[in-house]
């Protein structure tokens, strides 16, 4: 049996991707099972989904606890050790990243491959929705799932022209995925930053939700408090010099502040993934 864990973000299509893998395996003559994380999904919040593939009907009904493969759809989450944790020995991590696999700060008895799924998605779909874009790369790493099977499955979920675009993205990632390397550090660092996911109640830190973040031009700012009052998270602090300042742990990057600023003193800037 092959067990797969998918890391993504609410709205990126990780759950659909898990179903496409399951359908692809079935197209290839295998049995499969796609499991969403139980509970609620919030747009922007990190989440996980799971897949099992076997040559007999899968009877296990539990989450995947020690996967053979870990696939990450999000460039930011790709930099987090969480995606490489509790893998089977020699397990494979496929990360959406512009970087080389050896540049990712991931440790353990694992092998790593990277593909720039965001770049591929923007090129083929016009939007950074990376779920199908990364699946081609996955077929290359996982001999049990064929590209043909994935293509067939993609058309089941996205018929017609949208399917063509998604298939093109999958093919591109099949071509562009890097070779596998073995992780240099076998021992993961002790202090692992937890990825905060959805749920109910107050959260500690949602900085990981942000793909864009507000950059405030204090010269242009007229101190009208419009951005401050409309922020859903109280993530803009009103400072002593009558200007807003982002509270990093609280901003989810929705962009309401920039949209409402009457003098356009706030710009939403794509958060740079740092090595």
């Amino acid at each position: 049996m092959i067990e797969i864990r998918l890391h993504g973000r609410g709205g990126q299509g990780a759950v659909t991707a898990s179903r496409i893998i399951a359908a692809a395996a079935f197209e290839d003559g295998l049995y499969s099972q796609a499991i969403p994380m139980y509970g609620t999904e919030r747009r922007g919040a990190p989440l996980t989904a799971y897949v099992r593939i076997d040559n007999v009907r899968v009877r296990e009904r539990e989450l995947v606890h020690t996967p053979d493969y870990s696939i990450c759809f999000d460039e930011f989450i790709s930099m987090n050790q969480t995606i490489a944790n509790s893998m089977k020995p020699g397990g494979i991590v496929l990360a959406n990243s512009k970087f080389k696999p050896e540049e990712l700060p991931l440790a353990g008895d694992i092998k790593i491959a990277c593909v720039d799924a965001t770049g591929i998605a923007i090129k083929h779909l016009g939007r950074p929705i990376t779920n199908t874009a990364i699946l081609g790369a996955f077929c290359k790493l996982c001999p049990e799932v064929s590209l043909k099977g994935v293509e067939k499955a993609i058309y089941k979920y996205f018929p017609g022209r949208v399917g063509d675009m998604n298939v093109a993205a999958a093919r591109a990632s099949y071509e562009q995925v890097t070779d596998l390397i073995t992780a240099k550090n076998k021992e993961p660092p002790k202090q692992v930053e937890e990825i905060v996911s959805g749920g109910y109640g107050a959260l500690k830190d949602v900085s990981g939700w942000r793909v864009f973040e507000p950059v405030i031009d204090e010269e242009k700012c007229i101190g009208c408090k419009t951005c401050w009052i409309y922020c859903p998270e109280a993530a803009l602090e009103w400072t002593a010099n009558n200007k807003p300042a982002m509270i990093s742990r609280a901003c989810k990057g929705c962009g309401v502040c920039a949209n409402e600023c009457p003098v356009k003193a706030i710009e939403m800037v794509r958060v740079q993934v740092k090595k």
Partner: protein
Amino acid sequence: MSERMTRAQVPLEEGIIFPGSTCQGCGAAMAARLTFKVMGPNVIRHGIPCCPDQSSKSPSTGSVFEGAGPSLTGTSRALKALGRTDIKAVGFFGDGGVYDISFGGLMAAAQRNENALVICKDNEAYMNTGGQHSGGTPKYAETTTDQVGPNSRGNKFHKIRAAFAFAALGVPYIATASVAFPEDLMAKVKYAKDIEGFRVILIQTPCPVGWRFDPAKTIEVARSAVQSGMWPLYEIENGSTFKLNYKPKELKPITEYLKPQARFRHMTETEINEMQTYTNQRWEEVLRADEAKRLTF
């Protein structure tokens, strides 16, 4: 009636514990943040199943979905029996709770004039479970249970105008509010919190995920709802005295409100015209009531 509030009067302190667990650009989170800025201490907050908004720094309790009215009743009667009328019972519920499954219980509590403040964050469908139809869904909106196809044009019914249902019971205070008009919203909460008896504030809180628009445009969408007359802002006291809080010289066409939202994308020109006529008629009603300073319909 509430007293006008200026931006300078908006308290800097927050009444919520943030960040919360809502989606990006959540209108309900804004409503909670603004509400609890002015709510003050000595509040027992009541919830029923709904989307998360923002946790507040007050003791809170959750009841069964149909338990909105009775849970507030139980709390306020117990506070009275124990001689703790300094504490307020406040409900913070979604539109599905207020307009559908808890509607009967809230009507009964309103009829008994229980000492409670009900705040409804109206995102016009069951967004917590993926966007299913509620009594708050406007006509023609597509939801996951009002799908559009050869046999269906989305929701068949007009959105419930719950304020007037509560008005029929003569409760001391009813208001509508919008997250795009924060000072107006906070002034209403501030005024309502100290009135004795049953009070209702209905806040329209756009949902970027369910209404399908860019999360940065939450306020834009909320504002155009008010400016187009789709969500008029008004107050009703004792079931009769009426005041319209926002009166533009000319209403914007409803297309300004409908266009950014993919849930209305399928609407034909005829359907849009029908909604425009409906909106204009409703707007005339509230204008007339405002002139007469009392409910005239």
